[in-house]
């Protein structure tokens, strides 16, 4: 197992190097190049020339790349043209919100998806089954931002049941420790602050969780239907095990293996889906930051955030892979 993990970690190196080359090239390919990225869109040609000289952008490209790589390893991605602050600082400040949102979205998707998929399979052919199949098809076809706007319009604007923007009521004078607002509230025992943060997460989490929900329902249903017809289930039934035991020990446990892969995969993808959801709910996480960066053409932020998000995504996939190796011994041998 240790060898498997080490091998996977070593295989990260070419991926990360390739990522850095891609994003280095990306910034160079932009009109105006890195100087424009640092100085913003309104920089004059003289400013750009001076900047290029100052930061060695007139040097050979490989020297520039090595310098970029050296800084990237120290998590230095320059400063935002809009706020003048370090890109990494902004990222670390924004990331907790997105992580919280992703966790809540996954709780929603898993909590609803697995039971629904399982029930649909057990009542194969019933109205519940057809509804969940149609629902899961619709869930993938709806543009996420439209769903987010609908939820916001109905439950926040019209009915006023839930807050429709931000991460916490601005009047809430909460203590910040980790920037995970819910966690902060729990740590400082400011229960009302934690509860308020949870309420702010409900609508965005549902919007963000809809696609993974649809996919989890579908995979769970298909997987349970597959397993029910396996020989070992027939054997278990034939030897007289209680139906509940067969379901719990033989059907559910085996059916969840493909589901777990899907869950890991979706968790990684949610990080990028958050761009749309966070924008609608003005959530203030990494996703909103990317939207603001697109809008203000803040290229240093875009480059740094996309690179860092890709690294997080790769790491999540690695974790999923390792956990899959733990669950399924056949994967390790490959």
């Amino acid at each position, binding site marked *: 197992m240790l060898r498997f993990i080490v*091998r*996977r970690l070593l*295989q*990260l190196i*070419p*991926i990360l190097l*390739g*990522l850095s080359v*891609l*994003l280095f090239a*990306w910034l160079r*390919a*932009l009109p105006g190049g890195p100087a424009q990225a640092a100085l913003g869109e309104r920089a004059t040609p003289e400013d750009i020339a001076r900047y290029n000289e100052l930061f060695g952008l007139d040097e050979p490209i490989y020297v520039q790349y090595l310098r970029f790589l050296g800084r990237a390893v120290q998590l230095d991605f320059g400063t935002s043209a809009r706020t003048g602050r370090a890109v990494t600082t902004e990222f670390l400040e924004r990331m907790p919100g997105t992580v919280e949102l992703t966790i809540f979205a996954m709780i929603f998707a898993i909590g609803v998806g697995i039971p629904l998929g399982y029930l649909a399979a057990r009542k194969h052919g019933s109205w519940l089954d057809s509804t969940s199949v149609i629902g899961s*098809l*619709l869930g*993938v*076809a*709806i*543009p*996420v*931002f*439209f769903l987010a*706007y609908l939820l916001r*319009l109905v439950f926040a*604007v019209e009915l006023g049941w839930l807050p429709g923007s931000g991460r916490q009521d601005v009047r809430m004078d909460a203590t910040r420790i980790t920037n995970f607002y819910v966690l902060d509230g729990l740590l400082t025992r400011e229960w009302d602050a934690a509860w308020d943060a949870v309420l702010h997460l409900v609508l965005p989490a549902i919007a963000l969780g809809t696609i993974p929900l649809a996919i989890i329902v579908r995979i769970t249903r298909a997987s349970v239907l597959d397993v029910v017809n396996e020989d070992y289930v027939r054997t278990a039934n034939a030897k007289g095990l209680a139906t509940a035991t067969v379901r719990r020990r033989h059907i559910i446990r085996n059916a969840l293996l493909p589901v777990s*892969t899907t869950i*890991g*995969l979706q968790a*990684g*993808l949610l*990080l*990028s*889906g958050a*761009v*749309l959801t966070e*924008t609608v709910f003005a959530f203030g996480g990494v996703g909103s930051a*990317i*939207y603001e960066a*697109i*809008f203000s*053409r803040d*290229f240093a932020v*875009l480059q740094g955030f*996309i690179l860092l*998000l*890709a690294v997080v*995504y*790769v790491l999540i*996939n690695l974790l*999923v*892979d390792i956990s*899959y190796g733990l669950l399924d011994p056949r*994967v390790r041998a*490959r």
Partner: protein
Amino acid sequence: MTAFGDVRRRRIDELAARAGAVPEGEGGVSLTRSAFRRLRRNPVAIIGAVIVLVFLLVAAFAPLLAPRDPLAQTLLSQIRPGSIPGAQEGFPLGVDNLGRDLLSRLIMGSRQSLMIGVVSTVLGVVVGMALGVLAGGLGGWVDTVVMRFVDIVLSIPSLLMAISISVLLGQNQYALMIAIAVTQVPIFARLLRGSMLAQRNSDYALAATALGVKKGRIIFGHVLPNSLSPVIVQGTLSLATAIIEAAALSFLGLGDPDLARPEWGAMLANAQAFLSIRPELAVYPALCIIVVALGFTLLGESLREALDPKFRR
């Protein structure tokens, strides 16, 4: 070949391997014909095909079907801040925030939306297949290089990839298509490569090699045609994704800024500002996107069933 074990890739490979299995028990009937026969019997496939066909026809004959000029701001004079006129005589779905007939815009918009979906998917399929054939056909170091590159592209979540490309290429319809195509290339490359690897070791490829058939002919004449079914399935499903993704890019301000070309994604993005005044402005284009995406998905899923030997009989 052990590569960086990414689950997303493994899923693509599994799909490829499954569809690559040689079907049994339908002697004399070609795979295409038997698949088509099963497709015709599947109500889900029919629904999907009808939806897709209707939208394609609407797009093809849009100028004849649209009751009005989609750009004419006919009812501009009736628009006040906080109020946009709804359905009325001659304007069955009402007008948008600039007084243009919504129905005509939806009909004309089908052209641009479907074109973005089709062109970007075709582009993704063609480039992805070229890479897949290179990797799966030649093997060796070419395979390693191509697949490493594909892995790196796959390691950037697709929406972020599309955002970076659109920012790089600027805002026009071609940039939008290329941005979406780039996110699809690695999927098709991996899919075709995996499917070809499965076919390359099959008995008929071995037999052709033993008979002394040239490598190029085996690849293009035998292995490639037999490896295509997962690509066809994924291609159909990707049409849905592409249209949805185009809408997302429009929403992020990275769409086609040419106002002379109505497009559902842009209409939907634009309508968000008027959601509390007239939600219909967003609902109709959204419905168009959802229904057409659903059509492609239904068609793709039933194609998968029809082409997958596991579902035969």
